[in-house]
Every structure is written in structure tokens, then in C-alpha cells.
């Protein structure tokens, strides 16, 4: 950015006598806050359009025609503007507004879930009139009504700030709650007998400035002052929304979204927000146990016995049939550190490459790593064209859906969707091209060539989409790429990517693998043919081996089997020991019958998990892991962004952290994995994994929003400029794309 741009995009404003610099177009309330002047507000929310209706943020604004009371949430800073936030007039007006809000507000703070963290209560303490002058009767409404299974509405407490309704309409696109009636009788409600069934309803609870909207799961659970807060990242899916985890007496109580600029803008999907409920309700595994045969009654054992039995199985398998008879399925649930530890254990110590964190439900990992990647912000930037060929992001990657929706609805991005059926994106796509399963590569090729319209595709939609793609010539094409359905082979998505890159070399990709930390798993090498740091077995053999302190030939010799291959081999009796690392192939693998035969046939099934599930009922050894909320570490989202997850509660029962289990198992195999702490592991990742060079505690602490790996490389000497193509992603993925 040049100096000229700088001067154009900033304006000089005086706030309470202090000269400050504001961005052009910045709202007064935001500019003031950035400069530590807090203007009270109820309706304004920095992630939604201003409505200026609560009138709490009135301040004196003078743009040359004398000071006038103006809502600071609606007025943009302009050059030479003078703002006064504490004149007598302002204070009187704000106190007046507060009094107006309180006259009909019930005095039930002591039994209100919001009590103690309530903006209205806080404002009243700091600004409000002491004693009520209101002697008339307050408004009465039926106490909380269920607007959905998850959300309760108490209309007496509501101050009609339009936050929930604005969220529902503007952000989520589900205007199912609405202002009804008029004037003093105005209230929020749903259409009679229609639920507020939105995948994002929990956000309304988070942004309600009073206790009008509360969540059923959290209702009466705790008082804010009893809560401990831990910042973390949601691992409900691979978007990786930043959250604050509220706990009380070692119990997870609530997730709230944190406003992370690059990722979730403070929003969460309901699956993520309320999904942790499962941790509290499901049958958690709290003790290691063993079984003689599948489905036998489990026999609770000590950790040592469980580990020894596992070690014996592994040693036996190694002795009898070699490393190739040992396989591992899963790992997407784990932190990066735990994934690295298991990767080291399986690939470095045991020497098997039959390791797969995906269950044939995603994309070819080499494709994922080989594509030119874009962040969420780059993909969902204003204007331009976004091509979506993916799984239904509304169903699977909620907050990415919100970001895409925002780009399309508010920021003028045009979305072209190619899919076999309607998806969540269809509602705001500029063109939704229906392509029969398997035909997407041909259809997209035709779109990028500008025709002819392939058979079975609606001509008008095709024409509109083709025209958009032709018109945006100057902009790099942004692609959201995933696997639309398990029924379609991952090869189709690979072909789609190849087609796009053939025609639009400038295209960038955001891939949409769904599972929690599946990107971490791929980065840490829990996938056949790859080692930690996005390198292939071949390319990384020397460096990874030396990082791990083993001989290069101790690493697997050739790429191993993927999930389908592992299960097929197991069903054929070729796998002796199968480790289920937080995976449940019976439920998650498309071919249940094959999975069932595999589990039945395999002599030693070892499960590391949080809950009992269909698959681990076959396990001969079950090792309880501590899991989300009870472990520290880092996680990687679909952008390749690494953020910290925080331990908020103690592990249940005798559960151990996943990385500790790997280390203990190694120990039982008479090997020292070489780390005693997460810091040790991270240091080793930084040393060993080429894509993760520069990963330090400092880097992680500096930006809680996380950092996308690989880090930009330090400026190279000019002489090297010729070898441009060679980046670490290229190294791994040359053949993918």
C-alpha cells in the first residue's frame, strides 16, 4: 500500500478532546473503542449491520454544524469530526435510554442465567438511575417459551435490540424469529407452531444483551462468577472456530464463540456449540479394559496390563508377519502433538505405513497438500467469483457456510455451485449448476471453456455461470473443493481440481475435509505415503528419520494402504493388529459389511477412544483417552491454521492424553519416543516437519487466532529466485494436482 492510499483511507477525528486516526468508513463507536473510549450499546454488534435502534450509544457528534446527539453505531467517522461522549446532554440521554429499558424489565436478575454477565445489568450499575420512578405496572408476558429444542425466550426480559432477529436473517439466513406487533406491544417470536430451527440458533443466545434468550442445555447450570474460562478451539469440525470454554467444578458447561478475525467472527454452529454435551452425557470410557473375544464382557485392567497386552500384540505381529501386518485407522480427533506422537510410533518405531486418519470419506491427501491453498478470508473475500464443488458446507462446516454466505450476500462475491442436488449454498449461489454424480469434471471444464452446455444441464443456469466465469478474468478463481458424497469416488474431486488448474492456473483452493483435526493428521503423517510436515515418504525419509533419531530404512519402505485397503486386508486376514485411534469404521466407513468382517477377522484390535462405540466393542484392548476439553495441545484447521486447544477439565477417570498413550505404548515396546511434554513434541515437530519450521511457543502465543503453516519463508537471496516452483507443499503434492 502506498502512502497516498494511507492518507485516503484514514481520517482525523477528535474524541473527547483526543485526536485520533480512524479508518475511513469506520463507525464512531468502533473507532472510539479502538482508542479505549467505551460507548455503551445494546443493539450494535460489530459483526452485523447497524440498526441504531436502542439509542444507548448516543453521543454528541459535530461535523461542522454544531454538536447533535447521534447514534455512534450508525455514524461513520469523517475528517474533522468532533465527538463528545460524556457531555451533560449525552449523559442525560444515555441515562434516559437506560431508564426506559428498565421500566419494563423484570427484576429477576437473581434467577436469570445472564445475571453477572449481563450488559444491561452492568450498564445499570455504571450509568443507571438508582431508584425507579416508574410506578405503573410492568409489561407481562408468559415466562420462557421454547422457540426451539435448544433456545428459550423470555419476552419480558427482551429489550428489542434486534440482535437475534438480525442474526437470524442477516447472518444465518434463517429469518424464523421476528419482531411481531408494534410499538409498546412489540415482541420477538416465531410463527405459531414453527420452530426456530436454525443450525446456528445458539449464537442468538450468545449475543442477547440480556437474559431473554437462554439455552436449554445451560439453563440454571451455573452462575457466571462460578465459571472458569479457557480459550480454545472447537474441534467439532475442521473449521476450527475459536471458543471460550466455560467450566465449573470440573464440568464443561458452555462454549462461546470468540471473535477470531480470520475464522469465525464470533459465531459457532449449534453442533459445535452444543456438541460438547455429548462429553457429559455419553458413556465415557474411564478405565482401560481388555476382552478375550470381541463382544465379551470387558475386564477392567490396570494401565500397565493393557499396555503390555498391546505391546505383546504388536511385537507378535512384527515377529510373525512384519510391520505390514499392523495398521492404524483414525487420529483425526487428536491434537497435532498426539498425532505426531502416533505417527512417530507407527511409522518410525513400528515401521508400518498402513496408517490412515480418513475413512475413505474425504480427499486424496496428496491432492489436499498439492493444491495452491487459500485461507477462509481469501476464499470468502469481497467480490470476485467462488466456485463450489464440495460436501454440503451448511451441514458439515457450519461457520464456513456463514463466511461464504456473508461473502455472497453482503460482500458481492458471486458463487457458482456445481452439485448433484440442492445444498445449503444453493440459496445464495448466483448460479447453481446441477451435474449428475461423476460428471462434474466435464461440466466444470465446459463452464470454464464457455460451452457447449453438457447434456442434462439447464442451459440458462449454465450460461449464467459460464458468463460469470468468463467475466471475472482478472480475478483469481477461488474454489471450495470437497467430496460431495461418499457415493462418489474421491477421484472425481481430483479430476475436478485438475480440470480447474488446467484452465485457470491462478485458481486457489480451500478444501473441505470435515473431521475435526483431519488436516493436522495429514500434516503429521497419519496418512499413507506421507510423513510429518507434508512430505512424501521418499522426500522426507532422510530428514524425518534424522529428526526422529532412527535410520532412514527403519521408516516404511513404500506407501501403505489407505483405509479401504487396510479394512480389505484385515478382512482377508492379512492384518494381525489393528489400532483404532478414535475411529469407528462400523459407523463411519461407507461399507459397513467390509468393516465388520475386518474387525471380526483381525486377531488383535486395539482401540484408543473416548466413548464406547460399535467398533470398539470388537476391541481386545480398550485404552481410554482424555479427549477434547481435557487435553492441551494444538489443532490444525482446513486452512492449515494451527491454534491452541486448552485443557479446561481433568481427564475423566483414568483416561490419559493421547500422546501420553503413544509414549507409554512405545515404552512398553522398549522404545523412548523422546518427549516428556507437549513443548518437547512441538519442538520436535518444528525440527522434523518441513512445513512446520518456525513453530514455536512464542509464535503460538503471539496470535491466539493461530498461524497458517508453512510460515512465509524468510526472504531468500536473489540468486535463488530461479528455483521458484519448489515449495514444501509442492514437494509433497506434485503428483496430486
Amino acid at each position, binding site marked *: 500500500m502506498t502512502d497516498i492510499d494511507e492518507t485516503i483511507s484514514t481520517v482525523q477525528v477528535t474524541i473527547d478532546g483526543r485526536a485520533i486516526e480512524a479508518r475511513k468508513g469506520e463507525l464512531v463507536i468502533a473507532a472510539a473503542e479502538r482508542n479505549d473510549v467505551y460507548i455503551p450499546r445494546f443493539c450494535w454488534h460489530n459483526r452485523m449491520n447497524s440498526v441504531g435502534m436502542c*439509542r444507548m450509544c448516543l453521543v454528541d457528534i459535530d461535523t461542522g454544524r454544531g454538536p447533535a446527539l447521534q447514534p455512534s453505531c450508525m455514524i461513520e467517522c469523517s475528517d474533522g469530526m468532533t465527538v463528545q461522549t460524556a457531555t451533560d446532554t449525552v449523559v442525560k440521554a444515555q441515562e*434516559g435510554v437506560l431508564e426506559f429499558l428498565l421500566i419494563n424489565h423484570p427484576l429477576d436478575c437473581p434467577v436469570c442465567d445472564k445475571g453477572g454477565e449481563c450488559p444491561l445489568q452492568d450498564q445499570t450499575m455504571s450509568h443507571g438511575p438508582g431508584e425507579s420512578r416508574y410506578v405503573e405496572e410492568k409489561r407481562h408476558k408468559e415466562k420462557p417459551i421454547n422457540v426451539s429444542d435448544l433456545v428459550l425466550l423470555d419476552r419480558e426480559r427482551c429489550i428489542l435490540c434486534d440482535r437475534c432477529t438480525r442474526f437470524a436473517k442477516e447472518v444465518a439466513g434463517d429469518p424464523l424469529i421476528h419482531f411481531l406487533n408494534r410499538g*409498546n406491544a412489540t415482541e420477538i417470536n416465531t410463527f405459531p407452531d414453527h420452530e426456530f430451527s436454525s443450525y446456528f440458533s445458539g449464537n442468538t443466545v450468545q449475543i442477547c444483551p440480556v437474559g431473554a434468550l437462554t439455552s436449554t442445555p445451560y439453563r440454571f447450570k451455573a452462575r457466571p462468577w462460578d465459571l472458569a474460562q479457557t480459550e480454545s478451539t472447537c474441534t467439532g469440525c475442521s473449521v476450527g472456530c475459536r471458543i471460550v470454554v466455560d467450566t465449573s467444578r470440573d464440568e464443561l458447561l458452555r462454549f462461546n464463540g470468540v471473535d477470531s478475525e480470520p475464522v469465525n467472527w464470533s459465531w459457532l454452529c449449534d453442533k459445535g456449540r452444543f456438541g460438547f454435551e455429548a462429553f457429559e452425557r455419553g458413556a465415557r470410557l474411564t478405565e482401560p479394559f481388555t476382552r478375550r473375544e470381541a463382544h465379551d464382557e470387558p475386564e477392567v485392567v490396570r494401565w500397565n496390563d493393557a499396555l503390555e497386552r498391546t505391546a505383546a500384540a504388536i511385537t507378535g505381529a512384527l515377529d510373525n508377519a512384519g510391520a505390514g501386518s499392523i495398521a492404524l485407522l483414525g487420529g483425526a480427533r487428536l491434537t497435532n502433538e498426539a498425532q505426531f506422537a502416533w505417527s512417530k510410533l507407527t511409522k518410525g518405531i513400528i515401521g508400518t505405513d498402513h496408517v490412515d486418519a480418513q475413512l475413505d470419506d474425504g480427499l486424496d491427501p496428496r491432492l489436499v497438500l498439492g493444491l495452491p491453498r487459500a485461507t477462509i478470508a481469501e476464499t470468502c473475500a469481497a467480490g470476485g467469483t467462488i466456485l463450489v464443488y464440495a460436501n454440503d458446507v451448511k451441514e458439515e462446516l457450519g461457520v464456513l457456510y456463514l463466511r461464504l454466505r456473508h461473502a455472497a450476500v453482503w460482500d458481492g462475491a458471486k458463487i457458482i455451485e456445481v452439485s448433484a442436488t440442492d445444498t445449503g449454498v444453493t440459496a445464495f449461489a448466483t448460479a447453481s449448476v446441477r451435474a449428475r454424480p461423476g460428471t462434474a469434471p466435464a461440466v466444470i471444464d465446459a463452464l470454464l471453456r464457455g460451452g457447449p452446455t453438457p447434456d442434462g444441464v439447464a442451459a440458462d443456469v449454465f450460461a449464467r455461470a459460464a458468463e460469470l466465469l468468463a467475466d471475472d478474468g482478472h480475478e483469481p478463481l477461488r474454489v471450495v473443493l470437497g467430496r460431495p458424497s461418499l457415493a462418489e469416488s474421491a477421484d472425481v474431486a481430483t479430476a475436478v481440481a485438475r480440470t480447474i488448474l488446467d484452465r485457470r492456473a491462478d485458481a486457489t483452493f480451500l478444501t473441505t475435509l470435515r473431521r475435526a483435526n483431519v488436516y493436522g493428521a495429514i500434516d503429521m503423517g497419519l496418512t499413507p505415503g506421507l510423513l510429518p510436515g507434508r512430505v512424501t515418504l521418499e522426500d522426507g525419509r532422510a530428514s524425518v528419520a534424522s529428526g526422529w533419531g532412527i535410520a532412514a530404512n527403519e521408516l516404511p519402505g513404500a506407501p501403505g494402504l489407505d483405509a479401504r485397503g487396510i479394512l480389505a486386508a484385515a478382512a482377508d486376514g492379512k492384518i494381525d493388529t489393528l489400532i483404532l485411534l478414535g475411529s469407528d469404521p462400523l459407523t463411519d466407513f461407507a461399507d459397513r459389511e467390509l468393516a465388520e468382517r475386518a474387525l471380526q477377522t483381525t486377531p488383535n484390535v486395539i482401540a484408543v477412544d473416548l466413548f464406547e462405540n460399535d467398533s470398539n466393542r470388537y476391541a481386545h484392548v480398550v485404552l481410554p483417552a482424555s479427549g477434547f476439553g481435557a487435553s492441551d495441545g494444538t489443532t490444525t484447521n482446513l486452512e492449515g491454521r494451527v491454534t491452541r486447544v486448552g485443557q479446561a477439565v481433568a481427564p475423566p477417570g483414568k483416561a490419559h492424553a493421547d500422546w501420553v498413550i503413544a509414549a507409554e505404548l512405545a515404552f512398553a515396546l522398549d522404545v523412548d519416543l523422546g518427549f516428556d511434554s507437549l513443548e518437547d513434541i512441538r519442538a520436535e515437530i518444528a525440527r522434523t516437519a518441513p512445513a512446520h519450521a518456525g513453530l514455536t511457543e512464542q509464535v503460538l502465543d503471539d496470535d491466539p487466532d493461530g498461524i497458517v503453516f508453512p510460515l512465509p519463508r524468510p526472504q531468500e537471496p536473489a540468486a535463488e529466485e530461479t528455483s521458484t516452483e519448489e515449495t514444501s507443499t509442492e514437494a509433497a503434492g506434485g503428483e496430486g494436482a
Partner: protein
Amino acid sequence: MSGDRVNTDQIPHIVTGRLAAHDDAHTIARYEATGGYAGLRAALERTPDAVTAEVKEASLLGRGGAGFPAGVKWGFCPPGVWPRYLVVNGDESEPGTYKDRILMERDPHQLIEGILIACYAIGCAQAFLYCRGEMALAHERLGAALNEAYAAGYVGKNIMGTDYSIDVVLHWGAGAYIVGEETALIESLEGNRGMPRLKPPFFPAAKGLYLQPTVVNNVETLSNLPWIMTNGAAAFHALGAETSRGTRLFAVSGHVKNPGVHEVEFGTTTFRDLIYGYCGGIREDRDLKAFVPGGASSPWFFEEHLDLPLETKAVGNAGSMLGSGAVVVMDSETDVVKASRTLVRFFATESCGKCTPCREGTTWMERILDRIIAGQGRPEDVDLLLDVCDNISPELTWPPKQTTICPLGPSAPPSVASIVRRFPEEFERYLGTSFEVTVAMKGAAYVPKPDTAAVATGTPGETAS
């Protein structure tokens, strides 16, 4: 100016001439027979810019309440931004106001012609005639007139054989006073709740209907255009005075002998002319107690204001406004506390509910007044009432400041402020005691009776009760 001057009514009746002379003025036959659509023809022979210039020159002020010059407003549409829309404000609902309905029911073609002239000049691609919901006859007359005008080639494609084409769509409201406010009108026309938008940034001329440039004009404003186009801006400008040119409709209601709607010369006619001339004076020759000069939102005037001319600036300087041309007269027998409650109740009922001070404050005001009238007032209630007013309209200035988005909320305080100073004894009668007022009222019309200044402060013991 002589006190009993009666307007001799020699001025042209610009908007009511035809309907006064003919019962069938609403038909196209009568309309054409009496010079109808000649203004449109004249306009089409000129450039759009020339038409705008003519209207500017005429100094036609908006008749909807705010009194903004029509031609100037048209010029605010940002150049080069298309499409532009015209929205006709026929939502007439301000208490006391009765003029637009007459024009819609009795001379609909004149309005349609005005719309067509305006759209031609502005370059609008479509016009929407928003008629208040509760006016069934107006819907029928406007619907029938539009059908006639379409059939006759005045509206629709290639108007009168030219390349000027536009649809005029009749739209019905459904009962909400606030929808008369132009941004609420636009919201309503978009199918939404009629809740105003904040100006800025949502000035209709820049970001109006569908966020496109939109001109909102009142029915009476537009009904003047055919005459201006046929008779010229100069003839229009020759009528009236100062900042108020042409003629204007005033509805005089309440305690006068002959209530009625009168088209009078703007700017020169006085309130006395209206009340004592046109309307024959106060019923049963009683004394005048007070009058509302410009609709329910305006501060009240009294005896000493009678000789003010109906001139925007003069009335503004005296602390009130001509607003929507609604004069409501109250005789000496009037219970002004109840009258004020009626007005406050109106605003409380009609608040859209968007702004906290209006939604909560107007209802609170109504409750306090109800309680006072029911004999349950406390001495401190009047001051409380005024402080609530102050929190909606700081310092009770005129023109009003506001803590709200639109002027509806701040329209509730004026009647209260008008009577507290002027008729404190009426509150005292309800309260059974004197009261103290600490809240300042800065509006120029909020003054005690000229000769009994002491009473107006409401100091204890000043009045016998």
C-alpha cells in the same frame, strides 16, 4: 394586519378548483374536459431538466409536513444512478390532517398527472402510489382513474406517443401512522414492517426504495404540478409570501362554527383568517383557548398567535410549524389535559417500537396522564412527565432535538409542554394540589399566558384551587 380580515378568496384554486366545481371531477371525461393532462403534454414538450427548473422556480414546498422544496429534492438524486423511483405519500394520518384524501378521492387524475410530470423530470422508472389503507373510496377512485389513464395512453408504455414510459402502481397501506414517514413508507413498500431508517445514511434520494435513488412526495405537492406546468412557475410564485409560495390546503377542525378544508393563499393568510373568516369563528362565540397550528406534532398556539401569517418561517420562529396543514381549534370549555392525553395516546399507539425512548417513553407518558386524569396523580408527576419528555426530546427545544430516529417520538411532548406552562391550573385541578416544575422547556411557544407570567411556573399558591 387587521384583526378581522377575511380572505376575499380571489386567488386561483390550484388544486381544488375542479373538485369544488364538479361532482364528477374524478372521471377522466370531466378531467379532460377541464384542461386535464395539458400539464403533462406541456411537460413532455420540454426537457426533463427544464421541468425540474420550472418547479424549482415556482418554489413549491413539500406539503407533507417537512416543507422541503420539491424541485430541489428531485435534484438530490445522485447523477447516473438508475433506476430511480417515485413514491407518492398518500398515507395521510396525522391527527387533524385532511387534505390528501380529498385530492385522491375527488381529483385522482390531477394527482396521476402530477406523478407523471415528476417522473418525467426526475427520470423515474416506476412510480408507486402509496394510499393509506383505511381509505376505501380513495382506492376505488384511484384504481378506476389509473385504469382510465392507462386506457387513454397517459400511463404505461409510450405515454402520449412519446418514448416516455412508466407504470404507476397503486399500493395500499394497512393501518400504521408511522408509514407516513418517508423511510418507513419505503420499508413498508418493500413489504416490511414500517419502521423508519436513519437519515443519514438512508436519505431516500440517495438510498431509498431497494436502496435506489427515490423521491418521496406528498399527494398535495404533486397535485400542484399540472397547474404549474400549464400556468408557469411565475404565476405560482406570485402567490404567497416569503418562503411560502402558491396556495395551500388547510383543514380547520374542532370547535369552529364551520369546520372545513380550505385552499388559501400560502404565506399571507393568517390563522385569524382561517378560524374567524373561513370557518366563521368559535362555536357558540366562545373564547379561543388554544389551537394546534400544524397537526398533532406541533406545539400549540394561542390567542396571541392568531395574526401570524401561514408562513413557514414566521410560524417556525414563533415556536411551532404548519406541518401538515391541520388546524385544530379548542374553545374555552376544552379540558386541555384530556386533549393532550388524546394526542399523547395517539403517538404511543402509533410508535413503531424501534427506538427505546419512543417505544417506552410515549407509553409511559400516556400512563402518567391516565393516572392524573383518573385522580391518582402525585404532585411530582408533572415534573416526571416533563422529564420523560426531556428524555425523548432533550431540552424541549423547537425545532425539537431527539433521542430517536424519527420525529414521531419527539412529537408526543409538545402538547404536554404547551399546556404545563400555559394552563398549570388544569393540572392542579386534577392533582388537587400545586406542583413544581424543574425541567426546562426551551421551545418558543412553551410560554405562560402573556399577562400572568407568575402562574405559569406552577409555583405553589399562585392559583386558587
